[in-house]
């Protein structure tokens, strides 16, 4: 799975990685934040207005995540697919933390998440580098990517810089805590992509890592009989 702040090129690299894996004969599922059948549309609609509160936002993201986990990621992993996800729970946790939300709370909500085989963190040095990418993309500044709900600056630019600076700090700390595989994203797309391929090859060639990893969770999602979610909180994060 690929993590990193806004605009570091996550989706570009997922697309490259996907076609590369497929050309090598691996079945791939790619998924990402706010793409769930259940909550994706609702989140996008909620974000077009600016009335989404910080707790509501976190829980909406969690709904989206668990829906994709239960209905897309776990079935795909069981069927032997390689799952690539554009952002996982760490982005959600970072956004929550930057907004002053209790990290123990957010972690227990995501307690049923699978421990990924690898987290690739596309890291840039400073928010200023992200600004160049935001402008080059032609989309301009986004309200939420600029953290405008936090009232950090006079305008989108000031707010963006401060918000992304805080996000970087949190990501760096999580990187150490959860053992992210850090890739310097300020380099060319080609050299980042080749690093990613090398690292992914190593994981895929290790036999049986994914299949074993999902055994305990099979119980969690298969049939919704009363005791099945009992071990919800037992599965801790890495």
């Amino acid at each position: 799975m690929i993590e990193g702040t806004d605009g570091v090129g996550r989706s570009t690299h997922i697309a490259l990685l996907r076609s590369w894996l497929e050309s090598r004969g691996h079945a791939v599922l790619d998924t990402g934040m706010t793409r769930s059948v259940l909550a994706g549309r609702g989140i996008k609609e909620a974000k077009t207005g600016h009335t989404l509160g910080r707790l509501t936002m976190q829980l909406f993201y969690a709904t989206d995540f668990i829906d994709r986990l239960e209905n897309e990621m776990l079935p795909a992993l069981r069927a032997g697919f390689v799952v690539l996800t554009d952002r996982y729970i760490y982005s959600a946790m970072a956004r929550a933390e930057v907004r002053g939300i209790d990290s123990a709370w957010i972690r227990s909500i995501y307690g049923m998440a699978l421990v990924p085989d690898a987290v690739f963190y596309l890291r840039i040095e400073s928010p200023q580098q992200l600004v160049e990418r935001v402008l080059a993309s032609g989309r301009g500044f986004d309200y939420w990517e600029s953290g405008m709900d936090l009232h950090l600056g006079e305008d989108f630019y000031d707010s963006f810089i401060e918000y992304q600076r805080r996000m970087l700090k949190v990501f760096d700390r999580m990187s150490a805590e959860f053992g992210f595989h850090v890739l310097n994203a300020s380099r060319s797309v080609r050299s980042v992509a080749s690093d990613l391929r090398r690292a992914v090859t190593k994981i895929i060639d290790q036999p049986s890592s994914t299949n074993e990893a999902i055994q305990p969770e099979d119980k969690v999602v298969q049939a919704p009989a009363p005791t099945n979610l009992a071990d919800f909180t037992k599965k801790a994060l890495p």
Partner: protein
Amino acid sequence: MISYGKHQFPGKLFVVEGTDGSGKSTQLALLHQWLKAEGYPVFFSEWNSSPLVKDTTRRAKKRHLFTPATFSLLHATDFADRTERDIIPPLKAGAIVLADRYIYTAFARDVARGCNRAWVREVYSFAVKPTVAFFFRAPLNVAIDRIVSGRPNLKYYEAGMDLGFSDDPEDSFTMFQGKILEEYDRMVSEFGLTVIDATRSIERQQREMRMLISQHLKRRRSRSN
């Protein structure tokens, strides 16, 4: 994030809880009229009413998209929006907030659906603790009669059909409501719910509620004087 029981607001929060058909909404409506007539600023907030989440919930119910975990989380999202929008601001303003269903509804339903008890409580730990939480307790057969006679078609999730207890909606509903009632009963002491006997006359229940509530209102008045 301020957690359950730690909020300090000048306003008061009164909530009603109970199984479907226990008469709690009727009682809350009567209470609302009375408080307004007495001149209090009152704000009413209802379960499943977030404008941001409503469409998603409606679609998911129609298309049967929920699992127990996502059912729980989407309802928590709805409740968070209500808390941030409809509950905390009026309480800060010193108003009386009346809530038809509160976190205990989620605790009862989600645990009846198989979610872990501690996990669901943790998800909702941001909620404001009510000044008084009334639990309208009706024996299972009374509640079921009221619902089934008034509404011939039970809805899929309302009847707990997603749990596969029974293919018959009425049987499934009965089993599901039985589990919900068990959860409510264990919450009476855990959360200090105020039990109202929902088999008594409407007038008598209302008198009891008003008496209990006015104790809290007097204290509030004298403090602000």
